[in-house]
């Protein structure tokens, strides 16, 4: 239990990280440091996008697989790491 929290704290302590969300296989955020409604919105939207990205990668080359999906927007960058049904979403503001 404490290891999970420690790992999340290490990720959150990185430079520029605004928020992290861990989503389970059903699409429900189970650990987050943002408010509930934002987390649920991110989880729902990014889940579909990640599935689509993963199937695209595997269609092109069945032996390849998706590691991290990064969406860079004007204001910040969203990083999604999918594995075995879980999703880790990290929102970072790369301030130079």
């Amino acid at each position: 239990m404490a290891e999970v929290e420690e790992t999340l704290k290490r990720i959150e302590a990185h430079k520029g990280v605004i928020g992290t969300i861990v989503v389970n296989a059903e699409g429900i955020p189970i650990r987050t440091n943002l408010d509930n409604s934002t987390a649920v919105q991110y989880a729902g939207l990014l889940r579909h996008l990640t599935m689509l990205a993963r199937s695209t990668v595997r269609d092109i080359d069945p032996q390849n697989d998706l590691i991290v999906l990064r969406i860079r927007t004007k204001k910040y960058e969203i990083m999604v790491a999918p594995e075995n049904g879980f999703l880790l979403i990290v929102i970072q503001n790369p301030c130079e």
Partner: protein
Amino acid sequence: MFTDEALDSVSVRSLWRKSQQSEQESRDCQTRAVHSAEAGIQTVFTTLSCTQTEPQDQATEQLLKQNHNEPEPLGLKDFLQRVEEAVIRELVRNARSHAFDGFQVNWGDRSQLVSCLHCLQHPISQERGLHVTSVSWSCTGSVIACAYGRIDDGNWSTERSYVCMWNLDRRGLSPSQADLVIDVPTAVTALCCHPSQPALIAGGLYSGEVVVWDTSRTQDPVLALTGMSADSHREPVYQVAWLPLQKKGEFGVLSASSGGRVLVWMVDSDQGRFILNAAYALVQQQVSHSSSVSLKARGSSTVGITSLALSPWDSDTFLVGSEGGLLLRCSFSSKVPAAAPSEGQSVTLRAPAVFSFRPHSGPIHSIHCSPFHRNLFVSAGTDGLAHLHSLLQANPLLSLRVSDSYVFQVQWSPTRPLVFAAATGQGEVQIFDLGHRSLRPAATIEQRGAGQAASCLSFNCQNPHLLAVGNTDGTVGVWQLSADLTEQSPRESSQLEQIAHQVAE
């Protein structure tokens, strides 16, 4: 010799037939007889019940709360351990990367010019030489309301004036004919559209009255009027604003006049009147002087209010600018009673002033709080300068020279944190970008016709590239701003933070 011979026939037995003949056997069977029986039943009791699923988000909200107490789901720890390294590697690489420095994405057509879309006029007001005193966009962003009156009149006047509304999204828009004209018995000095109901407009009159018009009514648009009661103002009302009250969704009207009073009204639409909710009076003696400039108390000890701004970040704070150049931060929850003589009001007067900034050298015509930073606001008055203040310091952070004559209104842009526009007495609207190093304006809107001043301006929050400017010759210009004045660039918020944290010298 030859005799008949009879021979036996020769026959060959068919072997094929024998081999093809297979063994044959025959059997038959029959199933046993099937038993069948018949019986009848009838229901004696009936019950009915139905179920319905709960809306999805409630379930997820509950699940989120539960999981903090329960042991973590299976596999979460392993998942995080596996994924952590990859994610941290990407995060570090991202923080150091310069790949996207200065890269701007271009999703739509960008216009490069500032151009005038419409020039709206009301011929009757123009004939009588009325000035536009206030413009306000409705909450939908398509209707603009303009109030007519005079800005240079010091005497008591009883001339009638108008409030005109144009719907810019309508196809048959005629710039010289307003969609709706409301007759008002005296000059209108302040106007504000309701933040969520597009039909309500609050106005302040030269006689001190506060009015709410309901434009959805065809007969008589006046919804509520303060009238000349003991509660109302005695001097012209220079600012009205819709104030969110405690109950969510309800708004009261805040009015400030040059008699030194700030009053908060509740609208009673059934009876068509206002009920005074709270009253504040600003008196010279009670204004805390944190600067070393000492102000001698003159004959009248009231502080005439010429501008007021509500803070969108803190519902308790409001800023007040006065005729004498005083700039004050006030609080709604102040309990100190005012030292002004009470004239039979229904609510006791309170003194709201909490902090006093460095005074301007002339009346302050306009204050506006930044929608992007909780501590910044800009103020402008007759000294031709726009001062950028922080709520935490008495001295301004920056003073920009806007024009050589008066500045009538300043407003922050609703989309770009570093941009604000100022309407000057020379007829120009100067738009400043604090991100530029130089102190010169980023854009200047010049209006045709010399000798007229731009008396008010308003950004359209729904369509951020529109800016309405009202002039003293009775026209209202609707300008379209160029894309670089309306689109936010990536580092503006952090630049604004830096400016806010400067310490004024």
